[in-house]
Structure formats: C-alpha cells, structure tokens
C-alpha cells in the first residue's frame, strides 16, 4: 500500500521536508482568520422596476427563486448565523435509558460551575406537556423516562462547552423499569404499558367498503404477503436550533428553524401559560425539514432558561440528538391480502398494519390516517378492508416525515402488484392499467376522485423510459 503511494508520487521523498518559515507563517495566519466569503457588492444587477406592457405570464414560468442568489453566494442567514448580544448556550441532558423512573436528580454541581447561568428541571415548566393530537410528551421528564432520548434537565451557560460540562456534572439516579421495544410485543396483553393503562394502542383506524370475504371467494387467486419498513431519520443538514429572548415587558420572541410558526406560537403560549399576544415566533429559513421540524422541540425550555438568566438563549441539537431526541419515520408492519381474477382485475384487498409509534404520539394520528386511506393504492377496488393501529414502544418517537405513511404502504402495494403480475404472467403495466382509478372513480373512503392522472403518468413514464413489453 505504502509502496503504491510512493510509486504514484515519487517526488514526495525528494521534496524538502521543512517548509519555509514564510509559508508556515502564512498558513498559520490563514487558519486564524475567521471563515468569511469574499466581499460581494450588492445588488448584483440594477433594481427591477415594473415595466408597463412587459409580458407578465407568471404561472408556468421557470422563474428564478427569490432566495437563489443568497444560496448561491452563501449569504443565506440561517438560525445558526444569528447571535444576539449576551446570548447564552443551552444543553439538555438525555436520559440514556429507555424505560426508568427518576429516583433522584442532583444539579448542585452544575449550578456551582463558573459560567453556568441557569439550570432547569421539568417541574419548573408551567405545562410540561405538548403534542399535536394526544398531549403526552413532556419537555423535560420529571418522573418516568419513556425512551433514551428523553431530556431530564437543561442548562444555559456562557459557552456551549461549559453547558456540556455542566450537563455531564448533573447526577441522575434511575430505577430501571420493564420496557417494550417491538410493536407486535407491545400489542400483547401482558406487555409493559409505556403510558400505563391497559393497552399500548393509542389510535386505530378502520376503512371498510364492500365485502372482502365475498371478493376473495370470487377470486381466481389470493395473494398474502407481509411487508416491513424501518424507522429512518430526516437527516436535515441543519439540526434543530432556536433562540429565545424576552423583552422588558415580558414578551417572548423565539427565533426557530421550524415549518409551522402559527402552531409553535400556540404551543409556547400553552406550555409557558402566557397569552398568545406575548409570544412572537420568527421562522428562519429552514435548512432542511422533510417533516421533522413541524412542532416545537426544546423552545419552551430555552424560553424558561432565558427567563431565569435574563439573557437570550440559543439551543442547538447535536447530530446525535437529531437522531435520538427528535422524531423518525414510523416503522411499519403491513399484511396485504389481495384477490384477483385470472385476467388480473383486483376483486378484494384486505390490509392490516401496525405502526411503531415510539414513546409519544406526535403526528401518529395523521400518519395512521394517511397510511390507511392510501393503503389500497391508486386502484379502483370494490371490496376493501383496512385496519391499522399505532402502538407505543420505549423507542424514539415516530412523527411526521415527508410522506406520512405513504412511502411505507406504497412499498407494500406496489411490491404485491409486481408479485401478482409475475405470477399471472401479465405485463406489470397492463396489470396496473386494468385496475387504475379513472376520473370519477370512488376511493375506499367513498370520495369521488377528480383530476385523476395516474394512467397518464404511467404512459408518460413508460414512453420516456423506453419500456418494451416482454413476451
């Protein structure tokens, strides 16, 4: 290996090893300079003034985005480019255990550290719960830890490093509790219950049309398959970051990289128990969302730290926190049973699905809803039975993510369509064409569909791809 490298770069050995002092000095200076873009004179072109009579077709135009120059020049101001005078940095202590009761929490060492300005526990939060449908998620856990990414305490300090050191100095004693980590086990009557009560199921959905048993009885063949999909991470380039700042009148401003500022304002008002008129949320340009930034995450915690310290507070998730303390795509288990005629017409489709919701509800209700409605696929089927549920487990919370259950069910219904086409010896295009929705078709929920272009999408794709039917 080393010989290889030498062969490719024979002059490495011949070059003098010590660089001239001047070169080293310049390199050193280069490293000390802050990273700044080269100076740019703005604006880049004369200001645009409306021109009378200029053709103004706007819809359908390949118009330049208003933010493209900023992005192209590296001048976009993301949340992490914002620093307010006197700003502190927050860190949250993560439980690191999936199911436990907090027996003791000691923050005295953290509080005593120089540079630490505020420490916060869950019990200090006026309403220590949030959620978009079931309000079940604490901002900082007081008693019961339900997944390893739960926050248990928060610190604001003059630097991020001091805040981290203070977090490390917080002592927490846990009493481990039995946990459940598999959605099918969570359905068992004797499984540990993540939120108490007698079941881990927190939403069910049923969609019924026609009579599937009759459809299966009339079918030439019936196919039964199970499909599963994993939890995945949104992985935006920009992790969760927010800044909280109070003014002298007790009015709060939160800068946040969040996709839903109206909802964030309501949730801040509820958790802090202050009127909505005293909350301002400024949504910064979001550096990647994909559904992960649709609800508050740590903003009320930052607000309370800021209130205690009397200074603005910024909180920024690490990449690991982005994985363990945000939300992920719902892992799903889907059983598909489909009856077809000899010619490939679908007569009945029965679907059962279990969604792993993780520790808290988040956007599970709407994910289950969308998954159930979309589960039969873009096909006109007379007899449909869809039943689904979402269960709590002691794992990372599943929440909203681009597609809300649709990529999962599409994986299932289109895998099975391919399976059926192979088995019946019908070209996969022909099988789909036989079953597709048409303009005016009725969905499984009884909705009469308009603007249906699935046939055209397949025809276009097949033509552009150069699909040739094999005999």
């Amino acid at each position, binding site marked *: 290996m080393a010989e290889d490298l030498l062969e490719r770069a024979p002059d490495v050995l011949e070059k003098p090893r010590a660089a001239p002092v001047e070169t080293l000095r310049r390199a050193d200076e280069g490293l000390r300079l802050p990273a700044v873009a080269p100076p740019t004179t703005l604006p880049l072109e004369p200001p645009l003034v409306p021109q009378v009579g200029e053709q103004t077709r706007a819809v359908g*135009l390949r118009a*330049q985005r208003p933010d493209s120059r900023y992005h192209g020049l590296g001048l976009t101001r993301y949340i992490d480019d914002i620093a307010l005078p006197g700003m502190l940095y927050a860190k949250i202590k993560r439980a690191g255990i999936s199911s436990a009761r907090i027996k003791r929490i000691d923050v005295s060492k953290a509080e005593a550290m120089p540079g630490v300005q505020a420490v916060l526990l869950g019990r200090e939060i006026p309403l220590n719960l949030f959620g978009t449908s079931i309000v079940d998620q604490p901002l900082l856990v007081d008693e019961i830890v339900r997944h390893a990414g739960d926050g248990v305490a928060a610190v604001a300090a003059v630097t991020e490093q001091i805040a981290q050191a203070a977090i490390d100095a917080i002592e927490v004693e846990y009493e481990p509790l039995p946990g459940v980590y598999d959605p099918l086990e969570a359905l068992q009557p004797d499984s540990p219950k993540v939120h108490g009560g007698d079941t881990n199921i927190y939403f069910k959905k049923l969609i019924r049309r026609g009579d599937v048993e009759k459809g299966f009885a009339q079918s030439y063949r019936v196919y039964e398959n199970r499909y599963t999909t*994993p939890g995945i991470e949104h992985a935006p380039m920009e992790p969760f970051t927010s800044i909280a700042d109070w003014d002298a009148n007790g009015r709060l401003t939160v800068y946040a990289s969040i996709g839903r500022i109206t909802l964030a304002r309501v949730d801040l008002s509820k958790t802090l128990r202050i009127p909505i008129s005293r909350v301002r949320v400024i949504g910064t340009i979001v550096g990647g969302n994909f559904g992960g930034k649709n609800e508050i995450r740590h903003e009320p915690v930052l607000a309370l730290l800021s209130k205690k310290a009397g200074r603005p507070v910024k909180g920024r998730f690490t990449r690991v926190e982005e994985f*363990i303390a945000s939300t992920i795509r719902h892992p799903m288990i889907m059983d598909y049973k489909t009856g077809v005629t000899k010619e490939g017409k679908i007569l009945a489709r029965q679907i059962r699905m279990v969604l792993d919701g993780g520790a808290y509800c988040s956007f599970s209700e709407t994910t289950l*809803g969308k998954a159930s409605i979309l589960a039969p696929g873009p096909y006109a089927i007379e007899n449909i039975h869809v039943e689904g549920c979402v269960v709590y487990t002691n794992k990372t919370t599943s929440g909203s993510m681009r597609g809300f259950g649709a990529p999962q069910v599409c994986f299932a219904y289109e895998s099975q369509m391919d399976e059926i086409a192979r088995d019946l010896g019908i070209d996969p295009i022909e099988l789909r064409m036989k079953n597709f929705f048409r303009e005016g078709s009725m969905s499984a929920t009884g909705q009469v569909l*308009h*603007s249906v272009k699935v046939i*055209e999408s397949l025809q276009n794709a097949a033509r552009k791809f150069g699909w040739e039917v094999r005999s």
Partner: protein
Amino acid sequence: MKHRGRGIASMWYPVGFTGYSNPSGAVVKLNEDGSAVVLTGTVETGQGSLGALSQIAAEALGIAPNDIHIVSGDTDTCPMDTGAIASRTTYITGNAVRLAAEMARDTLFQVASGMLGVKPDQLEAKDHKIQVKSFPSRSAPIADVCNRAYNGVGTPPIGSATWDPPMVPMDAEGQGKPFGTYVYATQIAEVDVDDETGEVEVLRITASHDCGTAINPMLVEGQIDGGVYMGLGFGLYEEILFDKTGKQVNCNLTNYILPTSLDMPEIDEDIVENYDYTGPFGAKAVGEPSLVPTAVAVTNAIYDAVGVRITALPATSEKVLKAIKAKRAAEQKQIPA
C-alpha cells in the same frame, strides 16, 4: 456477474391534512408604483415555495414575479398559516394568496373603471396594465391606477383572504372526504445487481408526476430530484437500528448510511399535463409525493434483475446477497424432472 432489471411503481398522494381543517391566510398589498407585497405565515423550507407564491400573486395581478416581495415566517406581521407541511403550501396557501390578490385587484378595477369609462367587471390585469377585456388598446398602466388609488380615490388596494380545502371528516367505517384533492405519479427504475456482492446500482429513474399545473416547472423538477434521492435512501440504505434495550445503535452520519451524489442515478423528470379546478391556477402538489414510489420501483427492478423479492426495507447489499444465496440453495434442492 451483474444483472440488469427494471421496475415500476405508481402511487397516489393527498394534498393537505387528513380530514382536519388546515387553513392558510394571506395578505396582498399593492404599492403606489404597481409593485406588491405578500404576507404569508408559511416559511421557506428550501423547496422554493415563496417563489411559487410570488408567481401565483403575479399571475393574479398581471405583474411579474420580480415585482413582488414576500414577507414570511413572522407571527407578528404575517397572517396565520398551518405551515410548510403535508405538501399543502402551493395548493392551500397558494389559493389564499390568489384570493387575496384578486381582492386587491378588485380595488384596482374599481379605480380604473372611472379612468377608462367601463364597468369594473369589464377589466382584466395583464402585462402591468389594467385593460378592457377584448379591447386591450384601452388601458392604463397599473402604476397609474395604483397611484390614483392611493392619492386620488383614497382606496389603497389591499386584499386579505383565507382558504381551507373542503372536506368531510371520516366516520367509524372510514367513509368521508378527507382531502380536497390527490396527485398521482409513476416512477420506473433501471438497476444493475451484482449477484456476487448483492450490490445494487440504480442507473436511471424515469419519474412522471401529476401536480396539476406546474406553477414553476423548475421547482417541480427540483422536488422530484430531491424525492428520488430520499426514496433511494429509504429503498437501499437507511435504517435506524435499535439494540435490545431500545437505544439507537447507528445514531450518527458515520454509520447511518445516506446516499451521496455518487449514488444518484440519472433522473428523467416528466410533468403530466393537468389542471385541477380546485387549485390556484390549476396547481396541486409535488413535495412529498416525489419520494413515495422510488424505493419500490427499485426493489421491483431488483426482482426483475435477480429474481429475489425484498419484502423488508432497506434492500442492503447484505440482504440482497443473502436472498440470492437462499434462492440458489432452494433451486439446488429441487429434484430434476
């Protein structure tokens, strides 16, 4: 040895929330010179939605997208918005912007009707002018009309509107009208599968998407490219692994594998011609749907290439190789006829 395969996947996807109200508000203000300001409570999340909203407002006002400045993402200054979620911005916020722009435009028509000597409903806004329909030679520059509205008549043109898709909540049997409209798409993938390593290389993807009217085809294509990227990760690489105690094992970018630019196939984007009468200028959505069919188009192509069906995502090389070996073992066990 490498084997080539092709796979199809079609899908449908709804626009907006599942059977719940999810309104958007918008305010459109025309300035004295005929340029305009739009206020929206949504945020730019990288997809270019503010550009699309400018184009919608511009179309309604007969001015250019560059004449419009959008103020967004501030709860103090902007009207409420359910947000950048559920592929709803162009369709729902877009409808609110269109209605608000039309309201401001109606004020212009009132003012211009006095200037041009016709009834307001005889007027249209086009090419930076307010002009008489079917008689465009009688017209007034939009700047003159705006100026007159501000300084002559005393009715500065301001419009505000909200829009929420019409829905019927679902009942216990799941019957209802949960969404205002749906979009449709088909993607076809071509792959090479190495039967010695299980490695899957996606060569090209043809992605044909219905999004109603494409307000900006460039943004639609950008969404499709990003969606295919995400779909590839879902199909081939990405999986959060948990240990027996529910803790994540690969919670960093060093061991949670995302596709890189080197993994990207050639993408041929196609926009199906369509006009949805419920959307702003016929537009629907493309944000989330672009990722939905990619993974299964790829796994169907894997089956076509090597005859193994991946039923549990992701189709990692290890999983594909294991399936190929299992298939070979099963084949070997058969007694020849």
